[in-house]
């Protein structure tokens, strides 16, 4: 059995690279049938994952695994090694509000040595 295709992205923990992730995710979304507005939503959504992870990371790379299902949707999982800092709660609250509308499901978890975040969005 062939594993479904994935796109893996790794960026330095630097906000200057968030745009590269947005660009890559937008390109993947375009290939699997998302319309323009949904692509914009996904660009915002992955940016929100990035912003939260970089706040709590240890300065190491942010890693993203984009799992597209052509014609159906996409799941994006992201992680970073945990650092000493906490989330900016005010920004995080805004971020969660945004994600709750522009994704079908999303999550964020701080546990052990890693922080993880994920989202799902259907094509329809």
């Amino acid at each position: 059995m062939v594993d479904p295709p994935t796109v893996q992205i790794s960026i330095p923990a630097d906000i200057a690279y968030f745009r590269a992730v947005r660009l890559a995710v937008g390109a993947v979304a375009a290939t699997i049938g998302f319309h323009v507005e949904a692509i914009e939503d996904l660009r915002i959504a992955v940016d929100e994952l990035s912003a939260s992870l970089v706040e709590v990371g240890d300065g190491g790379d942010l890693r993203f695994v984009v799992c597209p299902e052509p014609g159906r949707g996409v799941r994006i999982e992201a992680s970073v090694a945990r650092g000493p800092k906490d989330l900016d709660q005010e920004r995080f609250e805004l971020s969660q509000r945004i994600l709750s509308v522009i994704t079908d499901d999303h999550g964020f978890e701080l546990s052990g040595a890693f922080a993880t975040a994920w989202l799902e969005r259907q094509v329809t």
Partner: protein
Amino acid sequence: MTSAPGPSAPPPDGEPLPPNDRIARQRVAPDPVQIVSMEVGDAAQGVVALRVSGELDALSAPLLARHLDGLDLAADQLIQLDLGAVSFIDSSGLRELVAPARGLIRVTAASDVVRRILEITGLEEMMSPPPS
């Protein structure tokens, strides 16, 4: 047959870039957000108006914050923001708009993405006229 010239060596430190190199570098690394204009309104009315363009994200939001902080405004100062040319905004950009003690911000124009994010986050009242 002629070939296109290759990249030129960088000039020594302290020397200005040739015009063509300046153009190329500007295209590769454009400003993430631009404060297009700032108009200080009638002092009696106490209005400051800013027009912002570009992507308002974690990278560029601090630029807007520094700009607003640099105005050294009173907490009740009315700031009118034209965000009609903002092509991207996230929670980091939004946070700067709702930061306390930076004046009373009203969004006088909003691009579709700004309007949508303000509505999602329940901040659409920022787009309403200020109380008279």
